[in-house]
């Protein structure tokens, strides 16, 4: 009798990445919808508040962050919902691969199909708001550091809300308060740059928060998944 497989962290990570990215590739419309939502929300503000260039340049960094945050939030249920419904999540939980591996892989894949495209698109939206070169760069940088935190925290909340009554509203109540600090520092970085201050303190805080989230949150995601498949 051969010894059973114990799996590996990297095996589970690679499995989840490969599978979720292939699934996303089969349905690129979901990424496009996320981006379209981002662009749409960002366009509503000039229409609602007024389109004076000075005002737009002033609110731009914050509005772009809020838009990206909402778009990332709307993409959250996609991390676990279908896997929960079709039983894949049970099979993952019973896999010999350590759960931290595949959970991290799923979140990384989710970031690649939501946070990363949003980050890459942000300079385009920033141009609409009349932001200048350096501010665009800092905005994108802060999104690159911040959106992975959103995917991590949001992933934990999405896993907790699996099978719950109240769906999207409940998820909003769970996830959005946890997103607040990320929004403050993320938008703060771009805003500091736009007003001529140094963005580095905000960016360092974001980076520190990202490291802390990378260390702590995957374990919470695993615990949440275990609770939800019970």
């Amino acid at each position: 009798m051969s010894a059973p497989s114990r799996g590996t962290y990297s095996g589970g990570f690679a499995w989840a990445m490969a599978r979720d990215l292939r699934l996303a590739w089969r349905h690129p419309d979901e990424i496009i919808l996320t981006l379209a939502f981002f662009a749409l929300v960002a366009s509503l503000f000039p229409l609602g508040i007024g389109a004076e260039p000075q005002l737009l340049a002033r609110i731009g960094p914050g509005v772009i962050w809020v838009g990206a945050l909402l778009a990332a939030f709307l993409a959250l249920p996609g991390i676990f919902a279908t896997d929960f419904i079709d039983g894949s999540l049970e099979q993952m939980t019973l896999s010999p691969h350590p759960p931290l591996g595949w959970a991290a892989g799923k979140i990384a894949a989710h970031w690649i199909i939501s946070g990363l495209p949003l980050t890459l698109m942000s300079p385009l939206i920033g141009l609409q708001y009349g932001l200048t070169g350096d501010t665009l760069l800092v905005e994108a940088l802060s999104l690159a550091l911040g959106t992975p935190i959103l995917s991590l925290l949001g992933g934990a909340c999405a896993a907790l809300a699996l099978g719950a009554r109240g769906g999207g509203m409940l998820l909003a109540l769970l996830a959005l308060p946890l997103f607040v600090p990320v929004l403050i520092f993320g938008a703060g970085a771009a805003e500091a740059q736009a007003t001529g201050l140094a963005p580095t303190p905000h960016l360092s805080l974001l980076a520190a928060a990202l490291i802390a989230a990378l260390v702590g949150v995957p374990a919470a995601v695993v615990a949440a998944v275990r609770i939800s498949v019970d």
Partner: protein
Amino acid sequence: MTEGRAALEVRDIACRRGPALLFSKLDFDVFPGELLCVRGPNGCGKTTLLRCVTGLTRPDAGRITWLGQSVPEDPARFRGDIAYGGHLPGLKDDLTTEENLEFSLRLRDVAVDRDAIARALAAVGLEKRRRLPARRLSAGQRRRIGLARLALDPALLWILDEPLTALDDAGQAHFVELLDRHLARGGLALVATHHNLLPPSGKVRELRIAG
């Protein structure tokens, strides 16, 4: 493996769902080469019992020992040894038959080449549907992907919940054949079913849960 010692020992297991007690003080053993059929009326807790044994559901009391070692001490090792088939097929609609099988085996950390996958799919009659997305398959054909998975997975303990659902006569016969081969190799099976499973070479016992 020492003779006479059960590979899977379940002692004093109890589970409640909400305020209702499903079962309590349940003891059973499964020996190598043996099939244990879990029977009982609908809603008596067969599915919950199987899920408790896999570790998906946390039982309210009880000990589970696998190959002489308590499962909570080394759950990863136990997970490596079991193949679970629940009510939900665990297939992705947007992946092809072949991809579904490949990904579910990779998740079990089973390395198989494409030829083996093609042969296993041919054996369950899905060779012409290898490249079809799973959403285009019927319920029975989806079940057959599960059969192909069982055929390729070297797991020692099968834990299956109503494995014959949606399978036609040929599919059911194929399942019994697979089960027989598994038991003949010294494998174990814990199966909740309303059907009479009669694998020719294996030993079959029954566990009844009162409603």
